[in-house]
């Protein structure tokens, strides 16, 4: 990004000149705008400013959630922009937990998302292994079919699943939604896991089989433990899909006892003239654990999501 190409000559090769020495030698103006080994100082300042602006834009809504959730009842509809409002109170948190079905929603979401992703990853792990290690008829069309299912708009699947579930009488129960969640991410998990298995050399299994293990035994004892990162990515991906799903839950679950958090929070928000702080308190409590989990595993997760397509 530099337009100037002067290179500062270093006084001694052992100790590079300090910032103070450089300013003394070149004058502040020259130092700030013209020195260009890497980035000139003014470029660094600009870049920091750009990034700070970007961070403010990305973070501000979250601080806003926190600040509105802390507002006392008589200041719900104020127009202040303070992060910690005057007379901050946890009343909204208390109300949401004690007087609303918040805990039920969270509990339901945890149950549905955990069971769905557990089954989903188990199914995908073995299926992907077959895709990675053997050639069988229709393998490439099957892989392309799996990819195409990712393009199906959600409502397209929801219409038939709703009618089928209505006819089977499993609309307000766990069975319908758990089975649906466990399969909805299977194609993507298979792609991720296949990509990962492909990087594990086949010699490892051969070695184990020479030592007397069965092929399946080699898979469970060697390949699965080696693939923990990919399994974790697939699990996390399945989990988020189920955890954040609104469309399927909205159609399949109408009984309050089965509400998952997206339905519950949507309802809180629907009554929004009175319940701003409660809606924000619920949102904040839901976001923080997910946020922590995602940011902590982001490096891992994002590289994993592109692994299947990028890797040679």
């Amino acid at each position, binding site marked *: 990004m530099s337009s100037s190409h002067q290179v500062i000559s270093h006084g001694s090769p052992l100790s590079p000149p300090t910032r103070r020495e450089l300013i003394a030698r070149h004058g502040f103006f020259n130092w700030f705008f013209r020195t260009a080994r890497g980035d000139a100082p003014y470029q660094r300042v600009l*870049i920091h400013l750009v990034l700070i602006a970007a*961070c403010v834009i*990305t973070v501000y809504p979250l601080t806003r959630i926190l600040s509105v959730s802390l507002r006392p009842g008589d200041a719900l509809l104020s127009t202040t922009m303070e992060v910690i409002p005057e007379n901050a109170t946890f009343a909204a948190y208390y109300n949401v937990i004690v007087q609303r079905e918040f805990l039920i929603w969270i*509990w339901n979401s945890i149950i549905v998302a955990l069971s769905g992703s557990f089954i989903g990853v188990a199914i995908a792990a073995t299926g992907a292994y077959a895709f990675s290690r053997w050639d069988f008829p229709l393998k490439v069309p099957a892989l392309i079919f799996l990819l195409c299912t*990712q*393009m199906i708009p959600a409502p397209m699947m929801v219409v038939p699943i709703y009618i089928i579930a209505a006819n089977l009488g499993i609309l307000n129960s766990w069975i319908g939604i758990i*089975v649906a969640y466990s399969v909805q991410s299977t194609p993507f998990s298979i792609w991720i896991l296949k990509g990962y298995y492909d990087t594990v050399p086949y010699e490892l299994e051969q070695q184990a089989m020479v030592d007397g293990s069965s092929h399946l035994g080699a898979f469970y004892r060697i390949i699965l433990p080696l693939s923990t990162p990919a399994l974790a990515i697939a699990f996390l991906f399945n989990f988020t899909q189920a955890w954040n799903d609104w469309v399927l839950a909205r159609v399949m679950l109408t009984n309050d006892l089965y509400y998952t958090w997206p339905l519950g929070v949507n309802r809180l928000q629907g009554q929004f003239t009175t319940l701003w702080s409660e809606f924000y308190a619920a949102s904040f409590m*839901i*976001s923080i654990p997910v946020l922590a989990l995602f940011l902590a595993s982001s490096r891992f997760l994002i590289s994993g999501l592109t692994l299947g397509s990028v890797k040679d």
Partner: protein
Amino acid sequence: MERFTLGFVISSLEEAGSIILGIVLVVVLLQVIAYVVLHHGLKARLALPLTLLVPAAVGLAVLTGYPLLYNVWLAFTNMSLQHISPHVDPDFGVGQFIANIRRVFTRPVLHSEHFFPVFGRTVAYTALQVTFHVSIGLFLAMCLNRRMKLRGIYRTLILIPWAIPQIVAVLTWRTEFHFQYGFVNILLRNFGHSGFFWLSDRMTNWIAFNLVNIWLGVPFMSVILLGGLQSIDPNYYEAAEIDGATWRQRFRNITLPMIRPVLTPAAILGWIWTFNMFNVPYFINARNFESSDILVTALFRAAFEYNRYGFAAAFSIVVFVILLIFTVFYVKISGLELTKKASQKMK
């Protein structure tokens, strides 16, 4: 009002536990049957891999294949709410299918909105969004791709929109677009503008959901592209700099070609995800303006607000085919190879 009690926890654990146990039993049973039949019955060479594939194949067949076929069947009927309870079989026939498809293109798909305006808006929105995601994402990634202080913190903070549960993010934005109390307008008033009717004006509502979608989509794209930039060998840049290449030349001749293997799949994924984005256009559209609907939300409304299932099924097939054509076209011109090579052969 339901209470979160121990009894409730235990009963829901029992229900979920028995379902998981049931599914695991079914899966194991299926695998044993498949293996016995294939290995001992048919003496098939590929008995083991096919057995491993059985659970995924059955699951996908039951929950993806069957609904898809059922969807096609629905498109050949005039199914609506009155055929579900009490259960009355709808009319079935090729005539119904042709009528449904004709209805998609010639009659309003919602109350008054026709297909082609919605389609045009969807394409415009998708193209706009992907362009913004990639260009802003690449810009931020290039800012982050250097040795600098606070880099880890910037990267983490920029990722926040991606990490917040999407429903929370979208509902929050919807609340914050409130004319009087939302922070967007409060902020604008601080700068002397009187604020926009984000939720109750058609044009600004369209802009509002586009802004939210940019906010949501850029972080993921920029971190993916940052990964791509980091894999470029810095020696290329050093050599180019010694040869006197300007930053524009370095960008065009080194950066762009080197991150193509990351950029192309990311852009294709972004295209599909944006085209199929449901939450943002559906929830930011608080007044249910048909003019803010894209194909996917229009599809949902046609099915679950107007309850025209047969028509919605035909509509969904049209939408899916459009996306498929776009994607195949995109994959072809970008020269992306989906399946590299067959895996290692086994004896």
